[in-house]
């Protein structure tokens, strides 16, 4: 006789573990499935975890979470072939508890986070693939796994099965993802001694830095690259829309190799020993790609719900927040013993009213606009670099004349069209 639980959580990433933790803490009987050998073994992320959402779930996480470095410096690099226009903020207030965000290595972090849910009483089943949702009378009543006697039942199934959620697709919540809705990210973890990292990035021990790179690092394709400092390694990666890679017949690992050789990047990772090579899809469709989130006995959270804010490279915090909110709705539904779509819909309402829905709404047209108008990456970033070079090169030309030259660049491109482009960019980002 197959066992019945209060809740089945499919996938033990940040969203799934957040849900399982919240549910188990409230005393519900939870089973969580992970297809990998252990949670995190199949997950990939540049590696920034945000304190606020984590603390809401595990208040004392600082004591035990496998955090790499608290981030004190966030940089944005607009790259051209041989130059870079840099912006950034370094704030030592982030070096002190409670901190703002941290670099993490997912294989360690996810294992820890799932372990916290297990401490609360959730059951974690590894190395088990959930193959389908069991539906009866239009209600999801359980799941089928790939193991013998592999059925298990529950009042609610929470789908946290990642970007290409097979179960949500089976239920008809979303269609096959379009290449313009997902980015393919490839990254490498490169081992370097802590002192070298601290010297190269101007950090004290136990301080970290992030760099987001735009422009030449993706060869003008819509996407970003990143360089994050871990304790004794550097994560470096490139993510670009799948559609861009296909149209331009580019291979993501070639972009990563080119980035590693870029003259302004090379020295940061020089002498490091490559430790891991990872690749993963990232949902980038934003607000417009959010699928149906709720039906009778089922909810979708995290990447499976396409909850990623590409503009601010936030995903893990949206995942955790959505997992928690789904769990809170189930806890409420349990009190009235009603798990119909009507009741579970509170999750969708709460989510869309929270920062998750609001942020995704704010940038709902950003990625599409940037994607349809390659000028931003292909022309304005190089222009920015040329303008900076012009202004900062001392060659006997007066600053008045230099400003004229810079304005000349804009006129070359067409003043009106530049203003239009900048207005359009401002409108989608405001």
């Amino acid at each position, binding site marked *: 006789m197959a*066992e019945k639980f209060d809740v089945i959580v499919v996938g033990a990433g940040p969203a799934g573990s957040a849900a399982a933790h919240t549910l188990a803490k409230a005393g519900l009987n939870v*089973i969580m499935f992970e297809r990998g050998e252990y949670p995190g073994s199949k997950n990939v992320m540049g590696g920034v975890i945000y304190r606020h959402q984590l603390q809401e779930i595990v208040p004392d996480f600082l004591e035990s979470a496998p955090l790499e470095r608290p981030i004190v410096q966030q940089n944005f690099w607009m790259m051209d072939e041989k130059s870079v226009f840099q912006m950034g903020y370094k704030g030592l207030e982030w070096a002190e508890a409670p901190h703002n965000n941290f670099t993490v290595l997912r294989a360690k972090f996810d294992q820890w986070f799932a372990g916290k849910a297990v401490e609360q009483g959730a*059951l*974690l*089943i590894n190395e*088990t693939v959930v193959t389908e949702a069991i539906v009866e009378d239009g209600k999801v009543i359980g799941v089928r*796994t790939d*193991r*013998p*006697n*592999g*059925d*298990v039942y529950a009042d609610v199934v929470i789908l946290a099965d990642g970007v290409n959620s097979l179960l949500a697709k089976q239920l008809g919540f979303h269609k096959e993802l379009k290449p313009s809705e997902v980015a393919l990210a490839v990254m490498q973890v490169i081992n370097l001694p802590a002192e070298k990292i601290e010297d190269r990035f101007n950090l004290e021990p136990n301080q970290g830095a992030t760099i987001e790179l735009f422009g030449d690092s993706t060869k003008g394709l819509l996407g970003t690259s990143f360089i994050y400092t871990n304790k004794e390694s550097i994560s470096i990666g490139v993510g670009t829309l799948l559609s861009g890679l296909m149209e331009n017949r580019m291979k993501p690992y070639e972009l990563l190799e080119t980035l590693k050789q870029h003259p302004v990047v090379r020295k940061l990772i020089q002498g490091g020993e490559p430790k891991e090579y990872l690749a993963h899809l990232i949902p980038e469709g934003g607000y417009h790609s959010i699928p149906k989130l709720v039906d009778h006995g089922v909810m979708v959270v995290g990447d499976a719900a396409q909850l990623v804010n590409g503009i601010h490279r936030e995903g893990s915090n949206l995942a955790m927040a959505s997992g928690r909110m789904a769990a809170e709705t189930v806890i409420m539904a349990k009190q009235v013993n009603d798990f119909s779509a009507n009741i579970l819909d509170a999750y969708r309402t709460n989510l869309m009213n929270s920062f998750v829905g609001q942020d995704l709404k704010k940038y709902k047209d950003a990625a599409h606009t940037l994607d349809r108008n390659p000028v931003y990456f292909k022309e304005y970033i190089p222009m920015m670099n040329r303008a900076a070079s012009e202004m900062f090169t001392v060659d006997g030309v007066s600053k008045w004349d230099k400003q004229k030259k810079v304005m000349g660049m804009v006129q070359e491109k067409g003043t009106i069209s530049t203003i239009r482009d900048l207005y359009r960019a401002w409108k989608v980002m405001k």
Partner: protein
Amino acid sequence: MHYVVFVKQVPDTSVVKLDPVTNTLDRSSAPSIINPYDSHAVEEAVRLKNKYGGKVTVISMGPPMAVDVIKKCIELGADDGVLISDRAFAGSDTLATSYALTQALRKVSEKEPVDVIFAGKQAIDGDTAQVGPGVARRLSMPVLAQVIHVESFSAEKKVIRVHRKIEDGVEIVESKLPVLITVEKEINDLTYAPLPNMIKAAKYKPLIWSVNDIEVDRDQLGLKGSPTVVGKIFAPPKQSGGQKVTGTADEVVKTVMDKLVNVHGLFTGGGVS
């Protein structure tokens, strides 16, 4: 029928690194796994149980984190598991380990007598193949090592007939129960554990016995009870790359045969006619 299986948690030696200074295993460099031979021992015990009825109990000795291998055995179908874990066991060699495990087994069999004891042929970290036979000797029990097949088993007559792998063939042996059997990996293919076993394992809380929970003479435990002296540890010399033979297939075969026959003396030893 009561089957007991000895299992050990080992570092995954396929990825483990050597500490370049001490030449000992750097255990932090590799995940901990169940000794692969032991998982086949559990599988065999579970198969016998499924066929002839009874119960499978696993016993392991190790640090507290070794509860994970007990849980793994529950996934594989074992009914119960005990971990003996205490600082007093630290530093035990094979003699002291076989003593500690024997005493744990005695306690387990107080509740329910044991008919067959299974163990892996050897552990992949130490490769000694001594602990299983050591336990059998202490219990004055016959031992069948390197078993690749259980041919027949009679619960009424209490006899088992097995195939043992020996140097140049297979030995078919019969023994009365109780008996201790160490297994090779080819004895069976591991079953993909059914979901109810996975759920049971996730919920399972293994018994943990300290040195106070079993009847022992402390002088026979740990470093004190371990006469083995490690004289020297060294990493094996790195094999230098051999000669690379290139050319067409015919040329390559000719060069290689020429070397084997004329340089290494193939066919001259009289082994092949």
